[in-house]
């Protein structure tokens, strides 16, 4: 079933090179990363830590860029007729969906790794001593975010042959998780159901709900290996991560949340796409 998965993934990755996307993204990422590295290096003597602001900035960047370059991964192929050619070959729809996720993830991951490393090199050259554990966990957190948002965006793109639908859905995901509209939803439900009366959704349920976002999942999972996970990975996560986290902030729960966002939406989209007429 997955023999051609790698073929589609490689094609998608090299498409980003052939279409120069990777160069535009890479240039943007490197400029920002080197800028942060330069500022971090110069400020090192005052106790400035490089990794938290670098990772926080890149959480924003990778989310925007991954959603942008992935939201039409399938819908654009659908509209252009490329999908017809791919599916005229012995390539399954499974290969198309998951290969697209892998290809787009690889493209953004490559420029992310290069940028973060360059930033670190610049900072070190200027005298900073970044925390290696923070750097590794921060980078893994970023790559996890890339995979989740590539997966989500490809899911949107597989739901319709309209790039308008998929781009609107991608923007919705950005608003939910980066602008954190997600955390407003329970309050809106309470307002709608109860007005100013006693809330239907209690606070502890809202607390669990807020920890179901991809960013909260990444932060909470990172808590297993990094004491300062909240500082490094918490920019778009809900609340804070205590030293002894409750069940809904436990690293295992965080891993499950991450796996959910990385796997479930795209799989549901694949199942729908698999029965669609092209």
């Amino acid at each position, binding site marked *: 079933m997955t*023999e*051609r998965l790698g*073929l589609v993934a490689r*094609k998608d990755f090299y*498409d980003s090179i*052939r*279409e120069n996307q990777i160069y535009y993204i890479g240039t943007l990422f490197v400029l920002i990363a080197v800028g942060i590295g330069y500022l971090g290096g110069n400020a090192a003597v005052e106790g400035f830590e490089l990794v938290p602001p670098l990772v926080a900035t890149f959480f924003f960047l990778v989310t925007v860029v991954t959603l942008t370059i992935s939201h039409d991964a399938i819908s654009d*192929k659908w509209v*252009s*007729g*490329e*999908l*017809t*050619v*791919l*599916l*005229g*070959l*012995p*390539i*399954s729809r499974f290969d198309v969906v998951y290969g697209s996720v892998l290809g787009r993830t690889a493209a953004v991951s490559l420029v992310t790794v290069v940028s973060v490393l360059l930033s670190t090199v610049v900072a070190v050259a200027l005298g900073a001593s970044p925390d290696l554990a923070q750097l590794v966990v921060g980078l893994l957190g970023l790559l996890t975010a890339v995979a989740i948002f590539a997966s989500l965006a490809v899911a949107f793109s597989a739901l319709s042959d309209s790039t308008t639908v998929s781009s609107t859905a991608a923007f919705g995901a950005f608003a939910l998780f980066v602008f954190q509209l997600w955390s407003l939803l329970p309050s809106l439900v309470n307002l709608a159901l109860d007005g100013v009366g006693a809330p239907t959704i209690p606070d502890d349920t809202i607390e669990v709900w807020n920890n179901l976002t991809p960013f909260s999942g990444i932060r909470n999972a990172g808590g297993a290996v990094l004491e300062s996970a909240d500082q490094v990975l918490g920019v778009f996560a809900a609340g804070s991560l205590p030293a002894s986290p409750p069940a809904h902030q436990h690293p295992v729960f965080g891993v499950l949340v991450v796996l959910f966002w990385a796997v479930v939406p795209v799989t549901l989209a694949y199942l729908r796409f698999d*029965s669609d*007429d*092209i």
Partner: protein
Amino acid sequence: MTAIDLAGVTKRYGDVTALQNLDLTVQSGEVFGFLGPNGAGKSTAIDIILGYVQATDGGGTALGHDIREESVAIRQRTGVLPDGFGALGEMTGRKHVEFAAEAKDADADVMALLERTGVAHAADRSVSGYSKGMAQRLMLAMALVGEPDLLILDEPTTGLDPNGARRMREIVSDEQDRGATVFFSSHILEQVQAVADRVGILDQGNLVAVDTLDGLREAAGSTDRMTVDLETVPGTLPDSVSGIDGVRDVTVRDSTLDISCADPAKGPVVHQCVEATTVQDVETSQASLEDIFAAYTEGGA
């Protein structure tokens, strides 16, 4: 052996029935032309065979594999020139064929295939800059990768110049000689007539006829034509020719008779003319596929 076997295939889009209870068998090694006007359901039938579209009812096999469940296995041994195709991103023509070869896990002489379809000169150009005809040739090259057992070509000559159309016909014949089955759709009658062993005529989602061209001619009532140039047209000749068994229609034009008749009636017609006057020239033509097509799709048969 059967290459394609469809039974009761129906496709409905809401209230619109694109294909109605299609039963069709294509034998291995034959060239089968699927003929019909735009919107007749030709592409829908091909899309169902290839798994692009799921049939509402019915099913079948291609190369022995179930069209619903084993689409990838079918496409492993099938070369496809789809309708409404698009370039694979910004890849060059050469990369397109290499991609097809890798997908099929086949050894392919990429340049030889591009030469064969007449697009080798643009092998290293991005396909996004190809003309419609060049892209059509490239898609055919991709379809030929791996010497497929079955070629499914949806409107293969659309966008091709006359040389390209001729080359397409030659390739279809060569592929048949190699042992491949060719199933192609077209609304261009001459293309079908030139290469097809059998023809299926589809009209408004219904398969109205399947046969060889000769069989279709016969079934459609044989509308062969004769043009007989005479020195003069004696007044009684048109009526006497009309009375010959198998003659359908006689029209007098100056000193010429235009006759629509069955093939066996041609001899008696000439004989009658020779007895009545001096015959200067005789031209005969078989019923064209266009005539047959009109007979089936306009209720004439």
